[in-house]
């Protein structure tokens, strides 16, 4: 079970207000308000109703509450339906549930590189004419290069 006390030895309660820097190794569950910077290699859970203002650097981040700041997760970021995230996001894997709000620059799965894994070669000028065929019965239309 992911939410067991073994996975999350530290919990900041719903009535807690914390300002400053936080560093942990295993997992932290945030239920209250946090202002500052969080650095970790473990899992961070921002529960529903919790508020985090500041930058986060962690292994895995799950957001059910509200985050204002930049999030950098080595493995995964999960945004549930109640999540609100305003800030830049960098991770290898992103899951956004329907209803979640996310505003900011987002870099996913690039390992910090912004170039595509495969170089995109420009198509020759003569092949730039594109035709859009009308769909046959219920099939969607096809757009392709006509040489």
């Amino acid at each position, binding site marked *: 079970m992911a939410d067991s006390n073994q996975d999350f030895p530290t919990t900041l309660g719903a009535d807690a207000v914390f300002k400053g820097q936080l560093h942990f190794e295993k997992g932290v569950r945030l239920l209250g308000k946090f202002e500052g910077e969080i650095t970790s290699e473990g899992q961070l859970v921002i529960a529903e109703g919790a508020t985090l203002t500041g930058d986060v650097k962690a292994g895995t981040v799950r957001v059910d509450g509200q985050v204002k700041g930049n999030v950098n997760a080595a493995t995964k970021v999960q945004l549930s339906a109640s999540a609100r995230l305003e800030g830049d996001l960098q991770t290898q894997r992103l899951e956004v549930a329907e209803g979640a709000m*996310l505003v900011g620059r987002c870099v996913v799965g690039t390992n910090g590189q912004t170039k595509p894994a495969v170089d995109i070669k420009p198509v020759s000028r003569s092949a730039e004419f594109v035709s*859009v065929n009308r769909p046959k019965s219920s099939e*969607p239309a096809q757009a*392709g*290069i006509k040489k």
Partner: protein
Amino acid sequence: MSSTLTEPGASIKKVQCTYCDGMIDVSLRAMSIFCPHCKKRLILEDFKIDSYYAVREFSTCGDVVVEKKGHVVAPIKAGNLTVKGKVQGHVTARGRVQIKKTGWFKGELEAPCLVIEVGAVFDGFVRIGAAPSAT
């Protein structure tokens, strides 16, 4: 959430204008119409793109699928968007945007729902869900 609403058995569907957000009743067989609210031409077809496709504007009320070999360089307005290939540009979707595991996206994205599969590459500014608070 989709820009196209169809009642079962009906020959008319409801679409939302990609420019003025006005709701319009259109025939299921219609491929394009002029919006009665803003008078702009709307494409209602679904598109499947499997090659390089660069245009100044790519707008449809239907769904767009960019296949593995597809590479779209354009501002896109669509209902639902599925990216299996490459997309560069400003995307505004009224429904779900899915970046599949082979997908590559660079640009800006506005949509109510986003799904990024493992292995997909996404780089850009996103606005998912409701508008942010003014504060």
